[in-house]
Structures are given as structure tokens and as C-alpha cells.
């Protein structure tokens, strides 16, 4: 089911400029710059914090944002792939931020104490805006989410940091808290090509405005503006002019009533957006601007479209998941008391069918993981509740079968165990990461009164297979004491780990089935212990 597709870059801009937010922000920035001091005021129920612009003479010098340890940003989750550089910010801006952060925070906390509507706008012009952005980022990434709603509005501010900073902010779902107002004549935000934009950019011209909200499109627009060589006119009056025109003269129509209008409102919207930037539709930069705006719409929409397509596919593979669930349930109820892990290894007709379902699900999830990797899905896709849970349910049910399959067909001493040598499939590694990142594993809900419906450690069976091998090796005559010690340690380690899971009822009933590999192993272990006396353990202790 589709939504109606409109060109929204210009609508966003019209909306933004129609709100009192930007007028009030600008007015306070003016005062801050004039008095060279932080201004904090309540206007119409909203608390505004304006930071003054400060002349920065040294060149952009990037410093690493300390996201670990006990620095300011220790709680900021970057979730960067390990091969990307760490997030970095302008060092001079960082120093300015450090000098005012705590003061601003305490002012906000005090100011909001008595207020029912807790809303804050942090703003600044030029470098003041950059400091404002870093302050906002800090407030938003506190270990406990702030108790107020926060918006950061900058005017003609230099960019704050590198690409990693920008993508970390998007991934942490914080980008929508930032709005950057940029005059098409202003060079300040697009002077340094190594720095990356984040948040929404509102480009203003005399004819109106356009909002772009992904970093690639913003960079592209910077590039177009750089190449047209629009003069860098004195900036402060420009912003003053835009703010007062859009806020007070909104009843003066800015586009002509004549001219043709495409019947397709998307096309019409793009054409109007290009005009709003002051470009003529026909000249080369107008054409580039048009392409840029179209691409921006596409970039914003494509991942959304793709994720709704995936939702339908998820529905299509649902029967496969239910089939495995059904297989598990009937194994649990069967008098064979083997559990679905061991039953699956039998690979008779029914298991073959289940195996096809396993393969189908694996293919679907591999596709999802690939799309996430290639950034074809919304940045925060894997944080969405629906997908975190869907992937989790899948993994809990299916990974034991993957392990069973591995030990039946693939395992050899040279290839190594499931958990070794990258034998475990990447999709599970990724899903594990999503689950951790979601950051709310099982809340302590009190003890389980019944066994979990699926074993909570999806690698339980792989660990058992290793322990099984250890026990077999122990029985062999040809191993030396050193090795025996290590094997025994692993056996005892797994034994106590498994005991805990069983006691907590974190394992599903299939693990405890009378004839399951686990039950058999437990039995063999106790036989082994009796045969060898507690000697083994005692001897081992003496090493």
C-alpha cells in the first residue's frame, strides 16, 4: 500500500519558516551576539538558549569525540563499523562547548523545574550555532534520556565534525533534532569539504526555501552552490532579511500566479522547489538543483519503500517459521523424547521439509542483513521493534537447526567447531548485535515458573557439541595430563553453565527431553565421574 508521493522539500521549508520557532530563535541569537553572552529566555512556553558567535582564527583542527571512558560523550552510541574512523569534532568548538556545557545544563534543569511543557530550543548564529549543536548532542546522549524535548537551530554555522560523527548521529536517531538554516550566499557552512553535515538543512534564498535532510544531498547542494559562485555577501543582514520576510510578509505571494503547473504534483513540487532556491529551471545549475532535489526525495523515500516491501516478504516467510515451530512442538510432545535438535539430525522425510523452511528463512534474513550493510534500508531499521523481535524469534528457533545441520554434515576436526573459524553464520552475529544495541535484553521479570519456549542461548547446542567432544577425548588413552586438565576444565565449565540455565528455566523443554544429546551427555558425564572417582577433579585441582 503506497502513500501519496509528494515533493516535500519545499513544504518542509514553508512549514519551518511559518513557525514562531525560527523567528524567536533568530531574535535571541542577535542578542547573544551583540552582548557576547549566553542568552536564556522563555518565549511562549518554550525555553530558548542562544549561544554567541565567537571568532575562531585557527584552522579546523579535528579532535576525537571521547565516546568511551568517562568523558562528556561516554553514553553516545556510535555503532560504527570497526573499519570507520572515530567521530571527530572541531577542537576549537569543543573547547568552547566544554567551557559552557555544565552551566547551560544546570540552567535548563532549573528553568524547567516548575514547567509543565518541557521544551527547549538551543540556537546560535555562526560558530555559536556549532557550539549549540555540540551542546545539543551532549544533552541528547546523556545516559538517561533528557526529560525535555530538544531542538537545535543553527544559522549559517560552520560544520561541526567528520563523516563518522554525521553517520553516528543518524544511526542514533538524533538527526531530526537538528535544523541548520543556511543562506545560499553563505560560504561558512560549505568552506571545508572534509566536514560532514548532519540533521536537516534549510536553504534560504529571496524566493523561499528548501529543506534537505540527508548528508549526501546537502553536500551535493553545497557543491552546486560552490560551482555557481554565488557571492558571499554580508551574512548577518541576509539572515535578518529572510527571517523577517518569511515571518512578517507571508501574505505577500512570492511565486507568480502565472506559468504552467504540471498535473503531476510531484513534478510541480520539484519545479517550485528549484524556483524557491532562486535558480532558473533552464540554466545548468537549475538543472543540477532539480536533480539534487529529486535524488534527495528518492534517498529519503527508497529505504522506506524497501522496508515496507520487506515487511510483506516477512509475512510471506512466516509459514516457514511456523513450520519449524510446529516441528519443535511435535518433537516436544513425541514419545521419542528426542527434542527437535536431535530429531532434525535424523533427516528423514519430515526433517527434509523442515530443512527447506530453514533454508528459506536463512535466505530471507541474509537478504535483510545484506541490505542493512549496503545501507539500503533506513538507518535505524534494525532498531525498530518489529524487526528486532522478528529477527530474535527467528534466531531463537532456527539457529539450533543450523547447528544441528553443521554437526551432521560439515563438522570436521580441521574445519573446527561451529563457534570457531567463522563457521557460525554472519546473520546470527548481526542479529546478536541488533539485540544488544536495542539495549533492553530481558528485563528482570522475576523467575520463570515454566521453561522458556525456546532456549535463550541460541548457541547452547554448539557449546554442548564441544563439551561432548571433550568428554569423548577424555576417554581416549592417548592424551597427556596437560590436555586432560584443559578438557576437564571445559567440561566442568559447561556443566555448571548448563546447570544454571536449567535452574533458571532459560532452556526450553527440548533440551531436557529424556533422550536429547544434552540428557545423554549429562548421564555419560556422571558415569564417567563415578568410574574415575572424584580423582579427576581433585587431581586437576592440584595443577
Amino acid at each position, binding site marked *: *500500500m*503506497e*502513500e*501519496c*508521493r*509528494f515533493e*516535500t522539500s*519545499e*513544504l*518542509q521549508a*514553508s*512549514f*519551518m519558516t*511559518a*513557525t*514562531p*520557532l525560527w523567528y524567536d530563535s533568530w531574535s535571541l541569537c542577535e542578542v547573544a551576539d551583540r552582548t557576547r553572552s549566553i542568552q536564556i529566555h522563555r518565549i*511562549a*512556553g*518554550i525555553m530558548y538558549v542562544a549561544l554567541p558567535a565567537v571568532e575562531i582564527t585557527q584552522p579546523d583542527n579535528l579532535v576525537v569525540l571521547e565516546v568511551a571512558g568517562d568523558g562528556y560523550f561516554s553514553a553516545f552510541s556510535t555503532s560504527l563499523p570497526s573499519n570507520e574512523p572515530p567521530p571527530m569534532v572541531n577542537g576549537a568548538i569543543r573547547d568552547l562547548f566544554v567551557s559552557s556545557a555544565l552551566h547551560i545544563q544546570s540552567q535548563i534543569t532549573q528553568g524547567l523545574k516548575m514547567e509543565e511543557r518541557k*521544551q527547549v*530550543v538551543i540556537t546560535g548564529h555562526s560558530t555559536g550555532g556549532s557550539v549549540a549543536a555540540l551542546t545539543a548532542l551532549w544533552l541528547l546522549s546523556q545516559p538517561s534520556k533528557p526529560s525535555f*524535548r530538544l*531542538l537545535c537551530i543553527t544559522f549559517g554555522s560552520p560544520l561541526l565534525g567528520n563523516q563518522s560523527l554525521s553517520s553516528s548521529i543518524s544511526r542514533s*536517531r538524533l*538527526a*531530526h*533534532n*537538528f535544523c541548520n538554516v543556511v543562506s545560499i550566499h553563505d560560504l561558512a557552512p560549505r568552506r571545508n569539504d572534509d566536514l560532514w553535515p548532519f*540533521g*536537516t538543512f534549510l536553504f534560504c534564498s529571496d524566493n523561499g526555501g528548501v529543506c534537505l*535532510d540527508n548528508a549526501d544531498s546537502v553536500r551535493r547542494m553545497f557543491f552546486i552552490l560552490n560551482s555557481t559562485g554565488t557571492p558571499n555577501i554580508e551574512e548577518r543582514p541576509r539572515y535578518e532579511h529572510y527571517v523577517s520576510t518569511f515571518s512578517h510578509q*507571508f*501574505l*505577500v*505571494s*512570492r*511565486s*507568480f*500566479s*502565472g506559468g504552467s*503547473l504540471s498535473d503531476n*504534483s510531484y513534478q*510541480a*513540487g520539484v519545479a*517550485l522547489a528549484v524556483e524557491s532556491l532562486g535558480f532558473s529551471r533552464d540554466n545548468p545549475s537549475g538543472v543540477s538543483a532539480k536533480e539534487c532535489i529529486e535524488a534527495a526525495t528518492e534517498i*529519503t523515500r527508497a529505504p522506506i519503500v524497501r522496508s515496507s516491501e520487506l515487511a510483506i516478504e516477512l*509475512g510471506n516467510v*512466516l*509459514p516457514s517459521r*511456523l*513450520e519449524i515451530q*510446529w516441528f519443535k*512442538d511435535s518433537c516436544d*510432545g513425541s514419545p521419542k523424547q528426542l527434542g527437535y535438535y536431535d530429531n532434525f539430525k535424523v533427516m528423514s522425510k519430515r526433517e527434509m521439509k523442515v530443512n527447506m523452511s530453514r533454508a528459506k528463512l536463512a535466505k530471507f534474513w541474509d537478504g535483510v542483513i545484506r541490505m542493512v550493510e549496503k545501507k539500503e534500508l533506513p538507518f535505524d531499521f534494525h532498531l525498530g521493534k518489529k524487526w528486532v523481535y522478528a529477527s530474535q524469534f527467528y534466531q531463537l528457533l532456527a539457529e539450533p537447526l543450523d547447528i544441528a545441520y553443521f554437526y551432521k554434515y560439515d563438522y570436521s576436526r580441521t574445519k573446527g567447531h561451529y563457534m570457531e573459524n567463522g563457521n557460525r553464520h554472519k546473520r546470527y552475529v548481526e542479529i546478536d548485535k541488533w539485540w544488544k544495541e536495542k539495549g533492553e535484553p530481558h528485563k528482570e*521479570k522475576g523467575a*520463570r*515458573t*515454566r521453561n522458556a*519456549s525456546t532456549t535463550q542461548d541460541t548457541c547452547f547446542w554448539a557449546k554442548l557439541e564441544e563439551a561432548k567432544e571433550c568428554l569423548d577425548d577424555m576417554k581416549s588413552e592417548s592424551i597427556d595430563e596437560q590436555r586432560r586438565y584443559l578438557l576437564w576444565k571445559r567440561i566442568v565449565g559447561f556443566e555448571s553453565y548448563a546447570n544454571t540455565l536449567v535452574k533458571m528455566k532459560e532452556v526450553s523443554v527440548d533440551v531436557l527431553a529424556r533422550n536429547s544429546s544434552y540428557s545423554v551427555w549429562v548421564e555419560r558425564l556422571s558415569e564417567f565421574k563415578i568410574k574415575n572417582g572424584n580423582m579427576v577433579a581433585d587431581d586437576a585441582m592440584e595443577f
Partner: protein
Amino acid sequence: MAFPILTGINDPVTSWSWRASTRAYSTDQYFHKEEEDETVIYAFKPSFSKKDWFAPENMSSFGEIKMNRDHFPCMRSFSKDLDATVNEAFLKNLEVLFSTSFSDSVKTVVDSRRSQRIVFTGHSSGGASAILATVWYLETYFKKQSGVFPEPLCLTFGAPLVGDYVFKHALRREDWSRFFMNFVTRFDIVPRIMLAQKASTNQTLPYALSQLNHTVSIQENDQSTAGFYATVMTDVETAAHEASFGNDKIMFSEENSSHLELSPYRSAGTFVFSTGTRLVSMNNSDAILQILFYASQSTNEQELSQRPYQSIRDHRSYQEMLDSVAMESLHHLPLDGVYVLSDFGLTKHAKKCVHAAFEADKKRVDNQSKIDAKLPRIVAKLTWIEKDYKLRCRTLRKGYYDSFKESNEEEDFIANVIRAELAGSFDEVLVLLKKGQLPDGFEGRSVWINLATRYRRLMEPLDIANYHRFSKNEDTGSYMEKGRPNRYKHAQRLYEHDLLIKAGRTAEEIQASSYGSFFWTEYEELRGKQYEYDEERVKKLEELLEGCIRDKEVDDEHIFLEGSSFRKWWHSLPEHHKRYSPLQERMNYIRDS
């Protein structure tokens, strides 16, 4: 969309209503009644004192309040389970009306059966009273389709906005929207006032209201009026832009909106705008909002400086509108194309926004056809469960609830897949409804209500079985409190609404019938407990069961089978209980299949 209620714009009832509305000015009553042939007109007297526009004790930013569900049961959204919001002062004016002979008078008209048509009309805030009086009439008389009542017609002239999008949605869902027609001259300030925050017009409103009154003369070039106008239009602009996003709003604007207080009010029914040379009618509330803003724009400073004065004058020029507009030039949007908007001096940009609002409507209709195209597949699945699966379970003498809960056979697996697939289909519709991406009338259609009811009765027991099979009641809580999916809650609301409207059932009867959905979860919960502790609940279950069976909420062919776990449980109850149980007869009788 046609306007069957009015034979045309030159229907004499229009100008008659206007005349009645002006005569209402001088009544010392709150309403004025005229009667001729088969038509009765009630015209309401407007007020120009602030307390009648914003209730003084109301603390909300736009003077709004939720409607009372007991008095206005239809005025809500089922997908969001939300009551409509209206301006409290206008609602109070309606209450004042009820302290007069108004409702008796209407009753006499209805009972006399002489009239074919009953018109509610008014100018200015009198129009707001007319709108709410019409809603009251529809809720009181019209919804019960037993008995024939005269169709209402609500004609307003320069009325303020009264309700929010739920108000609008409910009227359209019930197909009542067609009874409302609002005339608005191009610059009239009154339909725009409710879009502005109460606090921002607090100072200037009393004076502006005094200027709006027909009976006093207007001041030209008045600073106070100019200030009032500018304040109102600022908020009109924000509201118009906000509405034009539709669902395409990106996260940033979402965050942005959360910092702002935006007017909840939206237009309801048809709006007929006068451009000065012709009349343009439309009923898309987003498009209407765009017109309310963009029709005030101009490139000409001189013209703009006249606007505050015009915005007052236009509120008083409905007589001229009716006199001067050539009656044959009524245009309908979107039918007649946006070119008719040129008369409003709309820019390309404005036309695009209006056009987009209509396109969004078209999209909603498209979505509906896509859903409708899927219905046969849904029906086929339901039929399989009803016919094949249930029959098979009956032959096993077990009932489909127990069979599904045990899930031993291939058929149980297929039933489970179907359960999951149907859940997906109904969840998808619910999401679209919540996001407003289906026509307002979608869920009001009997075909949908019947399908959703059939789905709920048939499949909910399976969901309950599934819930208890995986002991989710331990993890999550009881099914009814924590586990019941919204798709069933929604389906039940629709069903109960339908009962209320069509069958005229009382609230108590509906309450009793709703117990049907509790049957299986109540059984599951009681089953694990000792009879002594829950004697009352067991008795209640037994007592209400007959009614549920009668209403087809519970399938008696299945629950009394020999293999039914419900039957087994009942037999395990103490003898002294069974002896007096209303189920005794059914339980001792073994049905032949």
C-alpha cells in the same frame, strides 16, 4: 461527490435559511423557528461576546474539549479509540439551547410526521450552534433507522470551525457529512479564527468580535483589527503548511511540530467559497485549509493593507454573496479542475498544495480498492477454517479450540498459518486506518463490519489458544488485559457500534454480548483455580453463556462436544454446583453428529 440534499445552490432553502438567520438576530430566544410546506427551519442567534467563543474556564490552548461519549456515541474514531474534540464554548451554547423549548420543539416536529426536511442554520457563531444541533439531531433521531425521520440539513454562513479531524472523520464515516454545507466569503475572518491560539488573540478578540456584529458599523483602517488579523493569519499559515504534509512528514518536522501547539480544528462537511464571481464547493478538509490561507495572499501591498478591513466586512456580506453570485456558476472541486481557483488569486505554489490534498484523497480511494481486491482471499481462508477445519475437529469430538491448542496434526498447522496470515491482513488495514490512508467511510461499510466480525468470532479463540499454549499469560499478563491484539478490539468496537446504530440495542445489552470474547480466556483462567475461590466468576460465566451463544459470539456446536476440555472442566466442578447450573441440561446431553 454529489449533493443530493440540496437541489442546487439556487435551492430556495438557501436564501430562506439566510433570511431566517438574520431574523434570529432579533429574537430574544436562542433560536428562531420558521415553517412552510414540508420544511422546518431552526435558525440560531449568534453571540459576539468572547465567553461564547472561548469558554472562560477552559484551560486548553484552543478552548477545546472532548465530546461526551454517552451523549455522542458516534462522534469518535474506532481505529484510534478517540472521541471527537470540539470547542467547549460552542458545546455549552448547545447545552443552553437544551434549557429552552428547543428539543421539545424538534420532537413535536418529528412526531407530527408532517415535515420532510428539517434545516438548522445560523450566521457566525449561530452557525456553530447549527452544526452541533445537527449532530445532536443525527445522534438522537437519525441513527436509529427504525422509524422514518426527516433528513436534516445544516446550512451555515461564515461559521467558525467547530470540531477536530475525528469530528470530521466520524461525520464522513456515518455518511452524515453530506448534510452539512458551509458558505464562506473569500476573506471572512471567522472560519479562520479557531486556527489561532487562544492566548495570542486574547487581547484583540473582544474588539474584533464587536466589529463582526451585523448591527454595528465597521471602523476602516483600524489598528486593532489589523493586529488581530495578522495574528490569526500567522497561525492559519502554520496550520495550512502542517496539513499539507499529509503523511510525508519527516522526522524533523515531527520534532518541530511537537514544539508547537497547533490548532486541532478542521472543517467538516462541504465548504462553498465565494470568489466574488463564482462559487466553488469542496469537501476535502485539507484543501479547505489551504484555501483559507492562500486565498488571503496577494502580490499587491495596497490590496494587502485592505485585508483586515475586508476580513471583517466579508463576514457581513452574505446577503451580497447570495444576491450577486450567478447561481449557475457553482463549481465542484476536484471535479472541475483547479483552474477555478484562479479567481482566488492563488499562486502556483498554492494550487499545488490544493491539488496535492485532492490527490491524497484519490490515493485513499486507491488503497481501498487494493484492500477490497484482497477480500476474496481473506474470505477463502475464513471459509476453510469454518468449513474444513471446524468440521474435522468436530468429527474428532473435540472442538476446534482444543484441537488447535494441542496442534498435533497437519491441519492444525495449516490453521496456524492461516491464523498468522489473517492477522497480518487485518493488522495492515488497522495501520492504514490509523494513519488516515483509507477513506473515512471505509470501516463504516457493512461489508467490512461483517467481515471483521466474522473474523473476530472465528479466529480470536485460536489466538487465545495460542496465547495460553505458549503460556504468554505468565510472561505478559492475562489475555484480555495485556495480550488482546488491537485488531480484535477494533473489530469489536465496530460491531458494537453497528449494534447500537442498526439494532438500537442498549448499552447494557451490548456490554453483555461483549462478554463473548472473554469466554475462552475466562475459561482458561478459571480452569487453573479452585472452585471455592472463584465461585462467582464461574457462575457469571455460566449465566452469560446463553446470551453469547444466541449472539453467535460462542459456538455451542463445539464447546459441548464430549472431547471438549470445557465440558471436562465443567464436570470437574463440585456436585452441589452442577446440580443448579444453567448448563446442566446441555452438559448431560450428548449430541449426535
